Structure formats: C-alpha cells, structure tokens
C-alpha cells in the first residue's frame, strides 16, 4: 500500500471498495489474518486496502504491520534482504500516545526470526515513531482520495486511534461523504461479557459509538467464535511460501494446532461484500458502551447501528472464503506511472 491518492480520477470508473483497516496487530491474530485476507480480496479485484494502521501506540505492532504489508507488496524476505528496510512505500498508521508495552511475546518472536544463515527473516522500515503516520491523519488523508461512499473502515482493536478522526477539523462531513460504514470487530451481542478490545479503552469506545457519523456494524466475539479461522489451513495452504510472516505469527501466537476466533475476518468480509448473504444482520438500533466495557444494543427503527449474526447455513461458504483469501499469494501490483504532469 502506498499513499494511493493518485489512483482514482473523479470521472473514472469506480474501483472496488477501499478498506481502511485499523487493528490490534500486536495482540490479535485475527487482525493479522485480516491483512492477509484483504490481500486476497485485492488480488481478486473485489477490494482495495487503502490504509493499514495499528490500534495502539506500539512500535512492535507497527513493525509487524509493516512486515506483513511489505510481504504482500513483494518485499524480499530472508537471506540478503538486509537492505530492503529502505523501502518506505507503504505507510503504517499508529495512534499518538505513550508507547504501549503489552505486545504479545510471540509477535516479538516473529519479528526476531532468523533465517538458517542467521540473517533476519523479516525487516521493517520502521525503527521509531517517525517511521509511522498518525493513524487518524493517515486514514483521513486516504479517505479523501476515494469516491464518495466507496470506502469502509474496519476496526479490530481499541478505538483510541480511530476516534481521533472525529476531532480533526471538518472531518465529520468528509467521513460521511467517503465512508459507507464502519465495521467494528469488538463487543458481544446481543449480550455477553466485556470484550477486552473495548474494556481496555472504554472512553474512546463510548465516544466512537456515540459520535461516529456513519452507520456502524458491530461484529461480536460470538461471531468470531462461531466462525474461527481453521488452523489446518496454516499447515496446508501456505506451501507456496517457505517464509511467511502471517504463518509465523499464527504459529507463535498460540500452541498449534488451534482454530483462531476471527471477528476481524468476518468484519472484512462483510465490509467488502455486505449484500452477498454471508451473514445475517440485526435490526437497526443503538449500541452503547457501558462503564465496565460491556456493550448494550437497544433496538430502534432509526438507529444507525446493527450487529452481525453468524448464519450456520453459511459457515462452510464463509470458511472457504477465509482460507482461500488469507492464503492467497501477493496481489499483482498495478503499474506505476508518473503522477500527472
């Protein structure tokens, strides 16, 4: 992903929907899988990943995002890849704030993986906060380059970074014009325990659900549990890549074999294909965030919020999309011409 602000012309044919993904890539394996899935959907020209940001101010999280995004851009891995850190085409967003130190150790293990020759398997161009963009600004800037209503935001982590957009000058009308909907992979619906993604960031989540100007669709943990990413796919579907950061992260995240609950994948699939019947949708209503981090859905005919419901009849179909898209090879890169005269 570059800062793809030249790609579309006002009069040009509308490209596939653009997805801005903001995820907790330090703590949630489904957020990393979501990056892979967006690559697969991009390869099939069903979607475009317009921006990638991490939900917490964590450098390791930004680095894993950069490594995964770089992998799908065709950055070499392993061996003599020492110089590839200089590639800075992709830009990773990260919220402002004091560094968060709660990255899962397995991700650090992934980042420090060595090749048999002893060189780093993966290199990131990000060595400090200045190597990243503030996520709210990055997302805003890239939304502005999209056709009206031809973008969606997927949030799979704390809301702190994303909610900052609401404070940017003139952002309300800009979000409303460009962003078709916000899909939030967090919460429990219609009721359930507090999701850590919300519990650890209650104030921002409250603000997000209360003030976000577009429709919001929430994807609760129950959807993630009902439609987990099959661990067997990791063993069988990635043979084409002997060194793959998503595979390494998956393996490092938890003892194999395991199926990973994946609300972020459901969120991406729904954001890209809302009308294809992969999921059921609740009636409209309003989602409120309680002080203890639980979410409460109140039906209301004029409500802007809904939540996603896993449809058992669609399970096989959904999982087939998950596995084929997540394990897809890097999308061919569009030709790069000079940007206007």
């Amino acid at each position, binding site marked *: 992903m570059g800062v793809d602000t030249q790609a579309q012309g006002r009069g040009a044919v509308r490209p596939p929907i653009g997805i801005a993904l903001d995820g907790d890539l330090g703590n949630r394996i489904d957020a990393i899988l979501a990056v892979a899935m967006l690559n697969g959907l991009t390869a099939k020209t069903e979607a475009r990943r317009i921006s990638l940001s991490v939900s917490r101010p964590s450098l390791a999280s930004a680095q894993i995002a950069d490594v995964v995004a770089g992998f799908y851009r065709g950055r070499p891995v392993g061996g003599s890849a020492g110089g590839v850190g200089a590639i800075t085409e992709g830009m990773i967003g990260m919220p402002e704030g004091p560094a968060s130190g709660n990255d899962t150790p397995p991700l650090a293990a992934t980042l420090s993986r060595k090749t048999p020759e002893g060189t780093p398997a993966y290199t990131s161009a990000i060595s400090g906060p200045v190597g990243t963009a503030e996520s709210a600004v990055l997302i805003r800037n890239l939304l502005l380059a999209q056709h009206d209503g031809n973008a969606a935001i997927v949030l799979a982590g704390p809301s702190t970074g994303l909610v900052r957009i609401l404070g940017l*000058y003139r952002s309300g009308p800009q979000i409303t014009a460009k962003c078709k909907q916000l899909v939030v992979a967090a919460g429990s619906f219609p009721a359930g325990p507090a999701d850590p993604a919300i519990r650890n960031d209650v104030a921002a989540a409250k603000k997000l659900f209360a003030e976000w100007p577009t429709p919001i669709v929430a994807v609760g943990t129950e959807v993630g549990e009902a439609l987990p990413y099959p661990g067997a796919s990791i063993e069988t579907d990635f043979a084409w890549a002997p060194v793959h950061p998503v595979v390494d992260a998956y393996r490092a995240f938890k003892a194999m074999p395991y199926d990973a609950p994946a609300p972020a994948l459901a969120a991406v699939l729904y954001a890209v294909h809302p009308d294809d019947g992969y999921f059921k949708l609740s009636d409209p209503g309003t989602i409120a965030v309680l002080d203890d981090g639980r979410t409460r859905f109140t039906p209301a005919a004029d409500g802007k919020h809904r939540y996603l419901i896993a449809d058992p009849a669609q399970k096989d179909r959904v999982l087939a999309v998950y596995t084929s898209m997540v394990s897809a090879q890097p999308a061919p890169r569009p030709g790069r011409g000079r940007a206007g005269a």
Partner: protein
Amino acid sequence: MIVTGKSLPRRTFLKGVGATVALPFLDSMVPAFAAAPKAPVRLAFLYVPNGIDMKNWNVPQEGALPAELPRILKPLEAFRGDMIQIGNLTNNSGRALLDGAGDHGRCAGSYLTGVQVKKTTIDIKASISCDQIIANKIGHQTRFASLELGMDDSRQAGDCDSGYSCAYTNNLAWRSETQPLPPVLDPRVLFERLFGTGVILSPEDMDRRARYRRSILDFVTGDTKKLQSSLGPTDRRKLEEYLSSIREVERQLEKAEKESVQIDPGMDKPYGVPPDFAEHFKLMSDMLTIAFQADLTRVSTFLMTREGTSRSYREIGIADGHHPCTHHQGKQELIDKVIQINEYHTKQLAGWLGNLKSIKEGDCSLLDNCMIVYGAGLSDGNRHLHEDLPTLLIGRGGDYFKPGRRVIYRKETPMSNFHLTLMDRMGVPVENFGDASGHLDPAPLT
C-alpha cells in the same frame, strides 16, 4: 519630522516630495530608563518550484546539523546555527484526491491555504492563506499589512497546469477563497511602493528622476540632517548604514534599468527587471530586508519562481527548462541539472540571510527576529510527491526556536500544523486551519 529632546517615536519617517522613508529601530526610540521594547517577529515564506532533489537536501539523522551538509544545503553552511530542517511535513491537499493531473497547480495553491483548490481556469477557489490571516490581525501595526514578491510570472488567467488556473501557480498569498494577491515582480514598482508616497510615477517622471540621477534620499535630505544632528554616535552609524543600503538598492535598480535587455525571449519580464536571476533576487530581497528592518511589514511571501516554471538557468549553464529537468526519469544528466538549480537557489538564499544576519536589532540580529520558511510544495519533482516537503525554518522567531538541528516529525504530519505554529508565534493564535490535525509538537523546535 519634528525632533525634540524626547525619545523618537517608532513610526518616524523621513519625508520629502514624493518620498517617504521609514526608519529602522534606533536606540533613541527607547525612552530613557525604559527597558528596550521587544523587536517584532517577522515571517517570510520563500517558495521554490518543482520540488527539490531530496537525496541532496535531507540531512539523514535527527539532532544537531552535521559539519558536512548535503550538497544543496552547502551554501547555507554559515547559517547552520540559524536553521532547522524539518522533515515529513505533508500537504495532502496538493495530492490528486480524485482531481487527476495538475500537481503543480494544486501544490502551490494549497501551500499556504491548506485546502484542495478547485480545478478550474475560470472560477478559482482556494481559501485565505495563513500569511493573510496574520496580516488581517496584525497588519494595521505596519505600513503594509503584507508584501507579496515574485520573480518571473504574474499571469492570473489561463491554464498553467492541466486545467488549473495560473492564479494557483503564480500566487502564494490569498486574501480570500477567490482573491489571490499577485506578487510584485518589478523591483522599481516595489521600490516606489516602499519609499514613494503612494503616487505611481508616470514613465516620464521616472525618466526625469533617472536623468537627473537623483536619489530618493535627496528628497529627504532636510529631514535626514535634522535627525542626524539629534542622534548619538551609535544611532548615527546605524542610520548611515541603513540609508546606504537604500542607496545601494537604487544603484542596482539604475544599473538593471540601464542594462535591461531580454536575454531570455521565453520570459515575459516587465521593464526594469534585471536579466540576471541573482541580481533580480538580490534587489527584491534587499528591499524586503529594508521593509523588515524599518518595520514596514512583518509578513511576506516570496515566490522565487512560479510553480511549474520551465525557466532556464543559462547563467549557470543550464539551457533546459527547470520543469522538464525535474522529470528526469532517473537520467543522471538531468538529475545533476536539478541539483545545480536547487543549489543555485540556496546560494541566493544565503546572500539574503547574510544580509539579515548583519543587521543588529538590540542584542541580536534581524535574522534572529525572523522566521524565514524556505521550501517547496513538492518533494520529489519527478514523481510529484507531496509528502516530506523540503522545509527549512531559519531564524529564532524572537528567541523562541532553537535552531541548528534537524527535526523529523511523524509521516503525514500536515503542513497546516506548521502554519498553526507559525501563526501562534506571530501572535495570531488560530484553532483550525487547512487540514491541520493540531500544532506541531514544539519540544523538538524550542
């Protein structure tokens, strides 16, 4: 002018027929036993077009500027301790954002306005620029609310870049969303504006003045003598130096007018504009120095050449146009020419900075009380990139900035954030501007 035993008013002028000369700050303007007043902070934006070769511009590391500066900055080595090189400022409004080609039109039109300009050659639309927000607020304190200077093209109509009006490429300052402020290109016009009485002399009058070789200072001799007799030795010397600088500008003007020949038929130059780029720049910047020194204005924009210019630089052996050279597509021969042009521009800047630095204001220099922003609306002119815009902040803004370093902000940091910071420093705090996400973190700058 009436001279009394009391302190001189700050707004003292030497007046004569058709001439008004403002004075620089003199010690005698401070009442006895009073603390010296703080010199005002001045702000100038000096803009260069078509981006800059970033490999030869950017200092790689944050922190103190190294002994060895990149090639394009080398002419500024004497000012290492006066400048901050700022990295990663981005002008998102300069990007296409669905409007297709026309990066030159967009990047200049949005450089100080922070908004996406309307793609049109007719019903232009941008927004008030940050310099004009400042001028609106503090401009009443000086004779000129702001000064807009330029060097090569003042067309306000027509298509200058892929459907963008020339009003976008040829102006930096915007009084309102539909009203650009065209720059003054002709040094004689600027001179008359600064030192005349507002009456525009006819060509015949100008000829008469030239024929008799009379200096504008000759018209204010009476006031000058009266003033000199009342000044102490330090102020007398200061005044003499100041008047000499005006005389020097006049001499340069006369020379330029005498030698006014069109050596570049591709350029549309008004009468009296020196054919030599460096001479032209020196004249314009010398007058801006005087305007700052005499507190005639505190805000200026200076378009060194218009955005997208295809001006050639034969004076340094480059017959190709600047713009075509920047689309080098990796050809080293053309890249070298771009670097040469970039370096030539910073050489001119160095001359001006030397001038500002040589002028004392109390315990510091005029440069210390300035914020000179030198930069471009594109970084890589070949790829038309709008991020990591080349930006130098020179001067201390009145003992506020701590120069001598390279500061890198996070990627995509809006240029408008920088403008908010500058407006604050000019005493014009503004909450929202352009696409700002907030002020720049002042810690690395101060």
